[in-house]
């Protein structure tokens, strides 16, 4: 009798443990499921269906496996590039035709003028005008990539560290090019020594080189973290509905999620601005440093 009771209790506790385990697993699954929307994947979702991208066999260069398969983020990278191209080219065409810009021409021009007058000229001076195409492309490309993530079924390519890494790599090259072009290669190398006694060079040169890399590295991480952060907050808020397992709680997380979404809209512009502004600032620093 005793054993049967114990057995019963054991069974009971077992079922309890089982159910709690299922609970835990389930709520974990919800997050894993929702986090898939942030992560890159080889499928693209459209309403009521999803497509697989054809796999491209990885190529091996210097021992690094490079998988050039088109992913969701590459796909949205291209969509963003396409939107940027259409919008800006249409704007340019319109502005060439009419004396007074209006509509889309005016919209694009507001950004162009702001970047020129408030970012490029204060940071880089008149010499910076020749880097305008690069900075403008950076701004509009990042902006559209950020914004497209707010569209349902869209994905934010900039919430992928590889994408921001690629952009930062270009920024790194542009910063060095701007400095070398302005100062000449000799001055540029001399600047790496920090102007200290030669005995300190073994310490100074690695520090300066490290300094060159930290700036774009910070650009990369800042953009990636900001764009990912907002999405994780939204996923967590929506996840609350599945954790509480009742639809009655939904209005609260959804209200918060809408608020975060509006914030994300602002962050999309802000991060595009910050990336452009800091790139311009770093280029400007490299261009000025010959004078000190």
């Amino acid at each position, binding site marked *: 009798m005793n054993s049967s009771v114990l057995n019963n209790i054991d069974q009971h506790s077992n079922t309890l443990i089982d159910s709690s385990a299922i609970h835990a697993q389930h709520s974990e699954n919800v997050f894993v499921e929702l986090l898939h929307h*942030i992560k890159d994947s080889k499928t693209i979702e459209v309403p009521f269906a999803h497509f697989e991208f054809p796999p491209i066999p*990885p190529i091996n260069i210097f021992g690094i496996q490079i998988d050039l398969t088109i992913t969701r983020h590459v796909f949205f990278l291209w969509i963003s590039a396409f939107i940027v191209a259409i919008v800006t080219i249409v704007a*340019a065409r319109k502005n060439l035709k009419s004396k007074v810009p209006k509509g889309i021409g005016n919209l694009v021009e507001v950004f*162009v003028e702001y970047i020129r007058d408030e970012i490029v000229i204060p940071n880089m001076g008149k010499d910076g005008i020749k880097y305008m195409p690069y900075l403008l492309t950076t701004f509009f490309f990042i902006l559209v990539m950020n914004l497209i993530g707010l569209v349902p079924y869209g994905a934010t390519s900039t919430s992928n560290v590889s*994408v921001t890494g*690629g952009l930062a*790599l270009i920024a790194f090259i542009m910063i060095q090019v701007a400095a070398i072009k302005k100062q000449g290669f000799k001055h540029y190398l001399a600047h790496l020594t920090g102007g200290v006694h030669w005995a300190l060079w073994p310490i100074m040169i690695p520090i300066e080189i490290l300094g060159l890399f930290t700036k774009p590295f910070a650009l990369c991480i800042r953009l990636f973290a900001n764009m990912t952060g907002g999405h994780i907050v939204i996923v967590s808020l929506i996840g609350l509905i599945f954790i509480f397992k009742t639809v009655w709680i939904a209005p609260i997380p959804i209200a918060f999620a809408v608020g975060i979404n509006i914030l994300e809209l602002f962050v999309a512009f802000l991060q595009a601005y910050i990336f452009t502004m800091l790139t311009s600032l770093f280029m400007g620093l490299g261009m000025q440093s010959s004078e000190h």
Partner: protein
Amino acid sequence: MLEINPGLVIWTIITFLVLLVLLKKFAWKPLLDALEKREERIRSSIERAEKSAQEAEQLVLENRKKIEQAEIKSAQILREARELGEKIKSEIIDRAHHQARHMLDQAKAEIEREKEAALLRLRSEVADLAILAAKKVVGDSLNEDLHRKLIDSYLKDLPKN
């Protein structure tokens, strides 16, 4: 989440570079050119507007000065004309007065002369009458010449008027 996918990095760079090359030619160059051209146009039209405003102001000043001068001149002309008029008027009046006095004098002289003539005629008439009357009274005792002498002497004794 932090793992780097080299394929994605390569795709990002390729996409960015293609976009950069494309936009540099078809979007940024025309946009920046249009912007610069418009700014130049605005600057020049503002300059032109400022210049013409300055010119207009100068013109207004000049006109005002001209009007002032004209007013002064017209006042002067008016004053001169009035003076001249005044002078002519007084001259005419003077002349008229003079002429009137002259005419009056002439008239007076005429009247005097006429009066003299009339008196003379009257005197001879009276003498004739007196002779005629005396002849009637005295008859033909006295001849005409004696009578005339007598009367003339008598008339001479009479007061002039």
